[in-house]
């Protein structure tokens, strides 16, 4: 993401170094960590001040780079004893500020725990450390005809530990599931440094489903040191239908018609006109520039299954009013159709100095209304917005285009984004489908959940981490914060946008 010139929220903890607990902590950390695994000079800390959401920055007090589980245990015991906050970080590709450092805390990078420990091709599992890159797992097991299914768009870089923390999805998750459906077991360290084995090598485990609770918990409950992931067979064949539509609603109906026909596509992606134009200018993928929306619908599986599905998908696109349909004739063509969709983010970076990626999910039937709502907001704020949509599962990624060098534009963008999330809640959806709450959407959590529900979340947190030392301040807002946000949010009891469609 491009945020080169953005507001810098950095505060200078370093100025207070004399009074800070840092020197004593550094001394104790260096007693069990090599000197190059404890960073505290401002220039060394700089690369860690933000994750993929670089609008939010904070210099950590100390960065540690442990290499073994034993070292992590010692770091946690020290943090627990000294009441020092600790934030875990994988590859730092997250888009919600979940790995934003704490100003008086330790940032623990798990990047050095990057080994694939065991591959069991017959049982179709791999045991990996948290710093292993998502795609590295599939690469390592390719020769067995297997792969790891969840494929977030950052899969070249993002780490599996981060995927567990965020419950990452990807373009294939309607058919193959999210992270939570594709992992079997975790080794987890509590803030006290105690080891818990959560899940099992079987398909379920005794007691409460803590594996589900841990997945997507954004580093708030424990530190994951090992993961057993499920592997599935690489499909024999994959084929893609690309259909153009002259209005968004018809494209939305086509998606519903595919599902109604009993087809679960391997991937189903939609792009709106502004996105089509941006990627076509960038990549020349052969997209129809007259289209208001393009649908990409993929089928995978046994060759006969794919042939059957592709024929049916073609017929459905036609009867749903597609103005143009192309079916990939070979693997190269399939990848070239996908290339445009995959280039949507970089394309946004080409047509605008900066962009801000949102991540709401809605019931698909409200797509038309939500997109009109976004269009109205786009006019209101005078900011363009590209829409890419995981159409199969209702996950919408509006990309708001702006220029951080124009004074006030980032603030306007953030407000615009907040309004989109509120629309998603009103449509019966959620403020985050796959990027997590982190720091970014913490205020909108106050709108999606009631006080009682937030209290349960705080209760869950307290059951794991009573002193609130693991990634404090993220994911779940304090009730106090919600009270303040509520007061700011409602102006004299009236809605700020009375004309917007509400559902």
């Amino acid at each position, binding site marked *: 993401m491009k945020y080169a010139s953005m507001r810098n929220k950095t505060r200078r903890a370093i100025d207070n170094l004399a009074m800070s607990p840092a020197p004593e902590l550094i001394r104790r950390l260096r007693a069990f960590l090599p000197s190059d695994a404890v960073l505290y000079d401002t220039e060394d800390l700089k690369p860690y001040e933000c994750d993929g959401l670089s609008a939010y920055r904070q210099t950590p007090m100390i960065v540690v780079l442990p290499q073994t589980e034993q070292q992590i245990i010692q770091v946690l015991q020290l943090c627990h004893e000294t009441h020092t906050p600790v934030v875990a970080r994988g590859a730092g590709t997250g888009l919600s500020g979940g790995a934003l450092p704490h100003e008086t805390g330790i940032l623990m990078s798990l990047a050095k725990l990057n080994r694939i420990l065991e591959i069991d091709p017959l049982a179709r599992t791999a045991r990996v450390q948290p710093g292993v890159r998502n795609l590295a797992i599939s690469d390592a097991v390719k020769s067995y005809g297997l792969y790891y299914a969840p494929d977030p768009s950052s899969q070249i870089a993002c780490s599996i530990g981060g995927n567990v923390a965020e419950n990452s999805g990807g373009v294939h998750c309607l058919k193959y599931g999210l992270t939570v459906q594709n992992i079997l077991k975790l080794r987890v360290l509590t803030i006290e440094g105690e080891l818990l084995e959560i899940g099992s090598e079987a398909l379920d485990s005794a007691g409460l489903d803590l594996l589900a609770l841990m997945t997507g918990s954004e580093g708030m409950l424990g530190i994951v040191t090992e993961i057993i992931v499920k592997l599935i067979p690489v499909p024999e064949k994959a084929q893609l239908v690309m259909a153009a539509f002259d209005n968004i609603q018809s494209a939305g109906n086509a998606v519903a018609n595919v599902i109604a026909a009993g087809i679960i596509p391997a991937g189903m992606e939609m792009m709106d006109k502004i996105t089509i134009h941006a990627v076509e200018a960038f990549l020349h993928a052969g997209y129809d520039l007259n289209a208001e929306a393009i649908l990409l619908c993929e089928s995978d599986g046994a060759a006969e299954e794919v042939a059957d599905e592709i024929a049916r998908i073609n017929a459905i696109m036609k009867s749903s009013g597609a103005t143009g349909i192309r079916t990939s004739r070979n693997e190269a063509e399939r990848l070239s159709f996908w290339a445009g969709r995959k280039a949507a983010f970089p394309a946004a970076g080409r047509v605008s100095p900066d962009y801000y990626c949102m991540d709401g999910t809605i019931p698909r039937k409200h797509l038309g209304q939500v997109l009109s709502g976004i269009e109205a907001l786009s006019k209101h704020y005078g900011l363009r917005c590209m829409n890419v949509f995981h159409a199969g599962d209702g996950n919408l990624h509006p990309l708001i285009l702006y220029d951080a060098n124009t004074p006030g534009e980032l603030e306007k963008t953030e407000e615009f984004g907040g309004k989109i999330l509120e629309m998603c809640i009103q449509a019966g959806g959620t403020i985050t489908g796959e990027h997590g709450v982190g720091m970014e959407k913490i205020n909108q959590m106050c709108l999606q959940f009631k006080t009682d529900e937030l209290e*349960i979340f705080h209760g869950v947190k307290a059951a794991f981490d009573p002193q609130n030392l693991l990634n404090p301040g993220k994911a779940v807002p304090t009730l106090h914060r919600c009270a303040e946000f509520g007061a700011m949010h409602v102006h004299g009891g009236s809605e700020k946008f009375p004309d917007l469609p509400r559902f």
Partner: protein
Amino acid sequence: MQTIIDQITAILRTAAERGQALHIQGGGSKAFYGHPRAEAAELLDITPYQGIVNYEPTELVITARAGTRLSEIESILREQGQMLAFEPPHFASTATLGGCVAAGLSGPRRASAGAVRDFVLGVRMLDGTGRDLHFGGQVMKNVAGYDVSRLMAGSMGTLGVLLEVSLKVLPLPAAENTISLEMNAAQAIKQMNQWAGKPLPITATCHVDGQLYIRLSGAETAIRAAQVQLGGESRADDDTFWHALREQTHPFFQPAAPLWRLSVKSTAPEYHLPGKQLMEWNGALRWLACQNDANNEDSDSAAHIIREAAKAAGGHATLFRGHRHATPVFHPLTPGLLSLHRRLKQQFDPAGILNPGRLYPEF
């Protein structure tokens, strides 16, 4: 319907004040499962809170009240060509959605499609203090807040009273066919795992009485192609067979007790334990039907041996039917996990009134 919620809320508040244990019950179809109802527990009947709240086939989501019968839900889905892909066992016609989620049991399709918890998208529930709470929602992807809705699956009613559940549903396969091949258990374990690693449309497996049964699902052409590849004999009675397996009406399950459920790594070698065995889920689920003549001491030591065997294969063992004496139903937790379970219980049900002891005697 709000009146019923108000009544349940009032019962919960009073019970919490008095420390009165409650036994949450839907259709009672799985009353045999888990530790028995605490003697002093009063019955909290959820069946009046029933009915479909929302079902939109093209959104692939159904929301229903906890007291709704599973059979009603499945028949409405079937009319639209859809299904609960985790194939939950009913065990009686009275089985409800709430009981299905609370027990967390899945059927033959589990290894290919996923378990109950994989299909839970959201819940509305009352906690042990009577607070009305919503978690998750009706959309496929939702990572706002901790995943409390999936935590409810298999929690045996210890964390809250489920009111409504939203589930992801899937289309029924266009066609299904079952083949059978003669082989012993060791061969079957190897074969099931090898085939599971190939792109084949296998949606259920079972090994019993020297036969391996494989269900294929999907387009007719794909099933035919797979059948050529796998060989074996095509069977005419396939629906009946898988239904009998799912509902445990298959003759294997008839000498009912004690019945052990070993959930293990799918490649775990064949167990040489006393009793008959049946395998499902590519080998990841092993049923062990024991003889019923053991005295107390023998049954405790048998339990120990079975549990050690399951643990050694990376899994756990449940005394599924025929609980008696001191043998715990569910695999004992490590001290660290047990203490975490108790702290979570404390957050959801501080007075300890919801199904106490049903999951573990300690809470």
